[in-house]
């Protein structure tokens, strides 16, 4: 389509528009040492974003402000600070309805303030990218890392990816647009990272030159009409189904909900191709597994190393996409496991629930360890939990 023909040309800023696969896999990359917030700046610089709207909330403020700098430098088309997160997400909707590629960020209470917009984005098929730098949403006030808010948006219908590291984060931000904007998907996408742990710490990130950028969004590859009066308007319907109490109205609403969920399912094939799978597994022949997402996986890897030194073999599964959830992949990866530990940075254990709902014999799942409210999860905590459960098992065998 039009997108292809633009490859090799230059955007307004003078960046060369390249094939996304070239940008993701072939373009030479340079190592840089940067924070997660800076990752946002570098990814958005190469994403040909038309409109970005921001609102301050810790810990995403720094990233959102840096996108503003990109606007001044000409990498982003339009940018302003909105009045609150609910409004910002509506402003993003307006821009997306108008055919723009849109980027915004939020955290914790901001996510919840904006919440009403997310199912609306989905139903309106707006491929907005929302970066969530997750943090606590509880009272008393906490600005500390906590992943509870991911669990709260799970059933909005959005695509939800959870990055473990700064490198994941950089790649997901760019790849996310390509998946979300596919005509058979065309849904909003939340790229989540654990606030502070990823946003505010520095890490090695390999990035391609900023002389290259993604192809621009082509709004006419859209399952819905773009609201720009460039295509003929129709009277949408003689008997509009909104708020009508009749069978055809219910059937229309129900089938559209099914279609948006089906669109999320259809994203699997694009995502698997770009991310190399919805999960990543190591030593899944082990009887003990750690399965989780985000930085809980990073901590899990350290725990695996510590336990290996003691002669305890533990495998690990990293879940990259929360929606669509990799049910089949998780089922396969856990088929040899006797005990499955699910470390999480939240008090409720939504990831454990997801896993329990995906696998047979789900008594194998140990929900934890959990930390919350900004507590860190040193690998020793995971090691201790695993040892405690193993000891109990031994006891019960001896009894």
């Amino acid at each position, binding site marked *: 389509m039009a997108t292809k023909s633009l490859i090799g040309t230059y955007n307004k800023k003078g960046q060369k528009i390249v094939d996304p696969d070239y940008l993701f896999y072939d373009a030479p990359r340079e190592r840089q040492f940067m924070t997660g917030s800076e990752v946002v700046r570098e990814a958005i610089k190469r994403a040909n974003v038309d*409109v970005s709207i921001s609102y301050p909330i810790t810990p995403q403020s720094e990233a959102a402000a840096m996108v503003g700098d990109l606007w001044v430098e000409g990498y982003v088309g339009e940018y302003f600070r909105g009045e609150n997160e609910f409004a910002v997400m509506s402003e993003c909707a307006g821009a997306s309805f108008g055919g723009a590629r849109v980027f915004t960020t939020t955290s914790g209470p901001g996510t919840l303030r904006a919440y009403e*917009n997310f199912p609306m984005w989905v139903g309106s098929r707006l491929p907005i990218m929302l970066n969530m730098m997750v943090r606590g949403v509880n009272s008393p006030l906490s600005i500390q890392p906590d992943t509870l808010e991911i669990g709260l948006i799970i059933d909005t219908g959005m695509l939800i990816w959870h990055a473990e590291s700064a490198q994941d984060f950089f790649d997901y931000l760019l790849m996310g647009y390509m998946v979300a904007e596919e005509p058979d998907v065309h849904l909003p996408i939340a790229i989540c990272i654990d606030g502070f742990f990823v946003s505010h710490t520095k890490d090695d990130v390999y990035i391609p030159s900023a002389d290259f950028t993604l192809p621009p969004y082509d709004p006419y590859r859209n399952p819905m009409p773009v609201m720009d009066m460039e295509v003929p*308007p129709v*009277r949408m319907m003689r008997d509009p189904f909104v708020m009508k109490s009749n069978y055809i109205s219910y059937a229309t609403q129900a089938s559209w909900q099914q279609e948006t969920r089906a669109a999320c399912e259809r994203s699997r094939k694009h995502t698997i191709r770009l991310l190399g799978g919805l999960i990543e597994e190591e030593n899944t022949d082990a009887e003990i597994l750690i399965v989780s997402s985000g930085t809980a996986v990073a901590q899990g890897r350290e725990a695996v190393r510590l336990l290996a030194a003691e002669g305890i073999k533990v495998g690990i599964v990293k879940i990259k996409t929360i929606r669509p959830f990799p049910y089949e992949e998780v089922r396969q990866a856990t088929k040899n496991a006797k005990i499955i530990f699910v470390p999480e940075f939240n008090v409720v254990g939504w990831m454990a629930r997801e896993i329990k709902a995906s696998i047979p014999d789900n008594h194998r799942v140990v929900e934890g360890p959990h930390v919350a409210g900004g507590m860190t999860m040193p690998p020793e905590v995971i090691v201790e939990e695993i040892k405690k459960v193993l000891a109990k098992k031994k006891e019960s065998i001896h009894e």
Partner: protein
Amino acid sequence: MSKEKIKINQEFYDIMPLEYRELVEEGTYGKENRGWKDVGESKELIEEHSLCAGCPESIAFRYVLACLPAPEDTIMVGSTGCTSLVFPHVAVHNIHSLFGNQNAVASGLKRALSFRFPDKIKDVVVLAGDGATVDIGLDMTLQSWFRQEKFTTICFDNELYANTGGQSSGLMQKGFVAKMAPAGKKFDKVPLPEIAKSSGCHYVVKMTVSKPNRVEKAIREAILVAREIGPTYIQLYTPCILEIGKQMMEGLQEMRDSEGPNKRFEFEEYVSDEARAYLDTVNPKKKKRKKAIVTK
């Protein structure tokens, strides 16, 4: 959008609904000097509204659609309420997303369209009820004005929540007894036109829709000013005859009764100096013609 784009493929002509064929052949996209007098003369951009018989909002809606200066490049943003029952029948692109966020949606939309079409005029017009504009959406209404967003906000003020069954709203008169104000509303009608002036609107009109000529002038000028100068606001009294106990023939009289001297919908207009100067450049011919009529 060029009017050339609205054509029916000959192969499908016979299966297209009659009203769409009429829209293509007799619609007023691209027509110069559109106005309320086209109602009844040519195909309207609003088809078979689904409001109550005799509802003043329905005629207001028809006037607004008839008076858009460039419907072929106008995108409307609505909100939840009686107006959202009409938007599906409207032949310009229109957005309904949530309740109260209309000025936020319009802000993002206008920014995106200005970026995507730097050499074209794309008018954005918000049309929402008083609950959406003044209560649940007040924050976003005002903030879009503070930011000088270049679009027009039209409020259909029926002084209550009509669609949910007549609950008290911020634009309801003080003392009026309604659902959720069972002992009478305790505070004054929110003076949004006053607030609009001090919040940065360049053109503010408060009126009823009893006089279509005036409505036409207000809508047209508000949209032209929003295009070039900054935000504009129009508050139209569209009484909910159902909820104030009127018959379907009494809507017009209710509006006339409410717009007399010192009544709450007495015609009020505010035009900033900048907007006045601009309107003088686009309206000179009309002015002369008016003068000529007066001298006769």
